[in-house]
């Protein structure tokens, strides 16, 4: 069995992608020696650090002007169509998920997005991922090579020891323009796949919202129960005072009480703090998946029947506001005493 890890070096999340794919490879494809890494990149200066993060000896670089899915797909297709690998693994973000599905379709293979496990042996590979909004786990058997898989968002594997870096790497460089110039991509209808000429102009604006949710050790998560923007602002003040990072559920982000960058859950951040306090959150599985790795979950909800109660370690059935007020007072008092002791 052969495999390729496909990484998006144009993205800021490259280190996380590399870590997740390496972890997945070590956990589920460790027995397969013939792996390579394909890195899409656009900045020459970053090339070496991208290569250094690769987990395989063979690295193929595809240089693009910018990350444009149509260009990237056709370049991948042209690079791989003659010596197709058995497995292609893609990161668990929007771009990785898109590539896995579209690439498989072009290569006549099978694809699955958002997987978290793989059994690859002699027969058909078997993968698992969530279904039914994260309430159920679905298992699939894949029938056609190449198997193109994207990882679950926030996938991390604890494989024990880290593998030593490959002694020396073999790097092959390509340019998307050259790859795509002589061979037109072919779709399943037999006609040419689209290129990026449908884009007449573009502008990218980096968001100035920052969040440390994924590395936060203490999170205060607020849900629809905070009722409105000023409810959320209060929670934000409390969080700032007690040293917690604020996260929100989907309704809070959808109502624009908080930016989308604060969203926790399958379509937001996958977190793993030491302590997560939830306020006015029902605990829908799509949200819960984002706090599942918390060491301790303390829920505050007025409804004893809310699912979050059963999914938390500690729960208070009450209005979140007076509970948070008192918690803030206690934590601040403790901080003051500790400050005086020092």
């Amino acid at each position, binding site marked *: 069995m052969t495999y390729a890890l496909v990484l998006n070096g144009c993205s800021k999340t490259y280190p996380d992608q590399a870590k997740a794919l390496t972890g997945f490879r070590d956990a589920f494809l460790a027995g397969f020696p013939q792996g390579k890494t394909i890195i899409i990149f656009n900045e020459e200066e970053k090339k070496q650090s991208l290569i250094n993060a690769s987990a395989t000896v063979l690295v193929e670089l595809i240089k693009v002007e910018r990350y444009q899915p149509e260009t990237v797909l056709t370049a991948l297709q042209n690079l791989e169509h003659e010596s197709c690998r058995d497995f292609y693994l893609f990161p668990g973000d*929007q771009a990785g998920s898109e590539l896995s599905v579209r690439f498989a379709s072009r290569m006549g293979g*099978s694809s699955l997005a958002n997987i978290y496990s793989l059994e690859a042996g002699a027969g058909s590979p078997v993968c698992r991922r969530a279904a039914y909004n994260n309430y159920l786990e679905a298992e699939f058997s894949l029938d056609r090579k190449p198997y193109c898989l994207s990882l679950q968002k926030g996938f991390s594997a604890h494989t024990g020891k880290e593998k030593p870096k490959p002694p020396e790497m073999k790097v092959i460089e390509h340019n998307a323009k050259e790859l795509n110039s002589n061979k037109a991509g072919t779709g399943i209808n037999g006609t040419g796949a689209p290129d990026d000429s449908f884009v007449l102009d573009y502008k990218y604006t980096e968001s100035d919202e920052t969040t440390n949710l994924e590395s936060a050790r203490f999170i205060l998560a607020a849900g629809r129960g905070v009722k409105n923007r000023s409810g959320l602002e209060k929670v934000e003040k409390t969080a700032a005072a007690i040293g917690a990072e604020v996260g929100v559920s989907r309704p809070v982000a959808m109502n624009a009480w908080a930016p989308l960058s604060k969203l926790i859950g399958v379509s937001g951040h996958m977190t793993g703090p*030491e302590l997560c306090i939830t306020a006015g959150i029902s605990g829908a*599985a799509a949200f819960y998946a984002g706090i599942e790795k918390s060491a301790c979950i303390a829920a505050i909800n007025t409804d004893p029947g809310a699912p979050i109660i059963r999914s938390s370690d500690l729960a208070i059935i009450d209005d979140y506001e007076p509970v948070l007020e008192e918690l803030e007072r206690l934590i601040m008092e403790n901080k003051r005493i500790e400050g005086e002791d020092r």
Partner: protein
Amino acid sequence: MQILACFKVVPDLDQMPAGDWLVDDRFRVETGYVKNMLNPYDESALEITLRYADQARRGNLPLNLTALTIGSKQADTYLKTLYALRYDKAVRVASDRDIRFLPEIAAAVISEYAAEKNRADVLIMGMQSGVGDNAKTPLLTAEYLNWPCITGVVAIEPANNGTKNLLKVKSMVDSGILEQTVRPPLVLAVSNAPGTYLRVPTLKDKVEYGKKPVEVQEMDNFKTGLAAANTSGGCRLTGLKPINHRREGLIIDGETAAEKARILYHSYLRERLGKL
């Protein structure tokens, strides 16, 4: 601009009682007794389309909106609401096939409808829907049509020179916003798009537009699409089981909210917070 917005009606799975996730030997799950809803990502796609329509109408741009769903009669109330919201055509592809984990079929039907029956310039739909959670339909649709695709779309509007049938598309990429002027045809996929809950039609519009009959097409009439779908796919569902989210759920009792907070803090949180 001819826009085809596709959506799915799904059970509100968050209303399922925890113990009721029973999977039968054909991997079916009885969800019929919880109320249904528009798949949230599709709901955003439908609203994003309406916002485009508001602007196009103001600019006197040619516009035709079609809403399409694949499924049973229960979708018809949603289709009528879309008529009331000024969609020009509401179509249901009638099917009782179990396509929960066969996004290839949904994509084949949609692409055939778009290319042959509707001649759409733009296709817009949610990236994923609960139940199958396949996250493939818009992507496969783009592949079957050989159209480009933009994911993470949060808004569309007519490009400044609207007469040229160009579109301005805003999408979320990584941690920023990408704004592109694009030339259709293309497929747009919507995920989380803040502030795009579907508007409610006015009573007047309900009376005036909401009574039009839904166009029903039989799935079996989509032969070429289905044939194409049979050559793709390649994943078979072989298991389905509940995920256990249970923790201890220790309920902290007290006379008042403040007392509960004190118990929580002193007995459980102080030490934990001290180690952070």
